[in-house]
């Protein structure tokens, strides 16, 4: 029941159970499970914070630092799944119209740009981690080595770049 001019997809805000995942070499379940665990932990830690403060008048504000770290992990891990599913926010108006060849070329171009950006971030952030390690930076809240946090930036950025590359290859195979 696809009509002309009608967007064939829902906005990113709404999960569409009718659209199954494309087959990927590395299963998307990895990201999905990590997303569920991180999201659950974030909710539990923040809730525990409210309860503890309410009943004991103590705050464990130091959990803020860990919550922020979990949020960064969530953005990168779930972001990686969203790249593989091509659910990033983008302007579909021109990219999803015109001939199938044009649509495919633009989809590949988009995936390639995501790949370039996150490869760049992954490479450059290695230097950030090295500096944190070399100068023995410690985190402001808990005082643990800062590189324990930042080391995940290159790792997870590489994962996103890999997902973008996978999308680029899949879009190339479609006829």
């Amino acid at each position, binding site marked *: *029941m696809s009509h002309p*001019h*009608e*967007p064939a997809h*829902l*906005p*990113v*805000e*709404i*999960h569409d159970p009718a659209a199954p995942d494309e087959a990927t070499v590395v299963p998307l379940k990895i990201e999905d499970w990590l*997303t*569920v665990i*991180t*999201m*659950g932990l*974030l*909710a539990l830690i*923040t*809730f525990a*914070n*409210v309860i503890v403060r*309410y009943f004991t008048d103590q705050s464990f504000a130091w959990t*803020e630092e860990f*919550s*922020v*770290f979990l*949020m*960064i992990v*969530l*953005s*990168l*891990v*779930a*972001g990686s*799944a*969203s790249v593989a*599913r091509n659910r*990033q*926010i*983008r*302007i579909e*108006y*021109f*990219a*999803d119209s015109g001939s199938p060849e044009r649509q495919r070329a*633009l*989809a590949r171009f*988009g995936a390639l*740009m*995501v790949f*370039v*950006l996150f490869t*760049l*971030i992954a490479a*450059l*952030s290695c*230097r*950030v981690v090295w500096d944190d390690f070399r100068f023995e930076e410690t985190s402001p809240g808990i005082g643990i080595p800062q590189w324990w946090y*930042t080391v995940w*930036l290159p790792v997870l950025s590489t994962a996103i770049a890999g997902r973008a590359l996978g999308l680029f290859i899949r879009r190339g195979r479609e006829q």
Partner: protein
Amino acid sequence: MIPTLLFVAFIAMMLAGVPIGASLGLAGAACIALANADAQWFGLLAVPQNFYAGLGKYPLLAIPMFVLVGSIFDRSGVALRLVNFAVAIVGRGPGMLPLVAIMVAMFLGGISGSGPANAAAVGAVMITAMSRAGYPPAFSASVVGAAAATDILIPPSVAFIVYSVLVPGASVPALFAAGMVPGVLAGLALIVPAVWMARKHKMGALEASLPRPPFWQSLREATWGLAAPILILGGMRAGWFTPTEAAVVAVFYGLFVGMVIHRTIKVKDLFVILQESGELSAIILLVVSLAGIFAFSLSTLGVIDPITHAIVNSGLGEYGVLALLILMLITVGMFLDGVSIFLIFVPLLWPIVQFYNWDPVWFGVILTLKVALGQFTPPLAVNLMVSSRIAGVRMEDTVPWVGWMLFGMFLVMVAVIAWPELALWLPRYLGY
């Protein structure tokens, strides 16, 4: 030369369908490299630093939590019971179901923080009910899509949280309070044309013959839903929780209602709820963090000052400039979603706001009203995408109906511009 390149590269990539975040990040990185050709590594170390710093802000944690609240309440069965209760109050008559749809959407706006999620929750219940009463599906889709747009004005609101992170002078509680009156006015401004159109076109003729739910029973069933905004907004007001904590309390309250009271959420649904809200949060947060790279390159290149200078000296005057900004944002809003508009334009417009000494909270409400209008202005109307899909109509079919409702909400925006007190009175009264 480099600033021009920044904007040309950015706009070209965006129009070609490259994800907004990647366009922002790449254009920003390219300009940083060109501007620092002599520095070590072309100054590009600023890229991961700004990316990490853009994400590492505690207030942003409210975004995944409120997205999770929306996802849970969507499934909690609260919307259906609120609809029954609203029908029990207003009764059955011509034009009453559109009124109920708008009222319930506004009420759910006091729980969830995003328009499309609201459109999905209200649409799932109201669109079939309205079809059964004889309303054309395209009309129902228009009413639900427009009504859900009040969600981002009525606190809590993801849009206000993003704005607050961008603008130092506007706290989340102040913005939430400031959105309340304009949000309710926007809802009223939708009710008038919706009921008027229903009566004029003699829609919903079957409505009067449908049974009216008993008042006390529907009140009892709706109690759990009715208490949710009181818990969220009242808890913040009483100083029990910060916005993030209020969201997480609402998460567990919603889970309790959905799993224990209404039994609409099963344990196995938790995986889907956490996964989809996690992914949606990540989609928003990645744009936020990559926009940090773009904003950094804007500030180091010093492009904003000349643009501001040209605009404020253009002889248009304060309200001329404001009208021009709104016209521009309405045009951009046809292609871009609300969060991206905030991330791209708030840093650009900020010096203009300071030059005219506009209140940052008031300006945030104006921008959010504009984004709310954009959520049901075709062709890129995220709320209408959701509601037309549920109603099984094309988005074009809603055009004859949304026009008057757009006009109604537009008048509210003009009113808030003319009388800033509409937005600013409540936060001042509450002492934010």
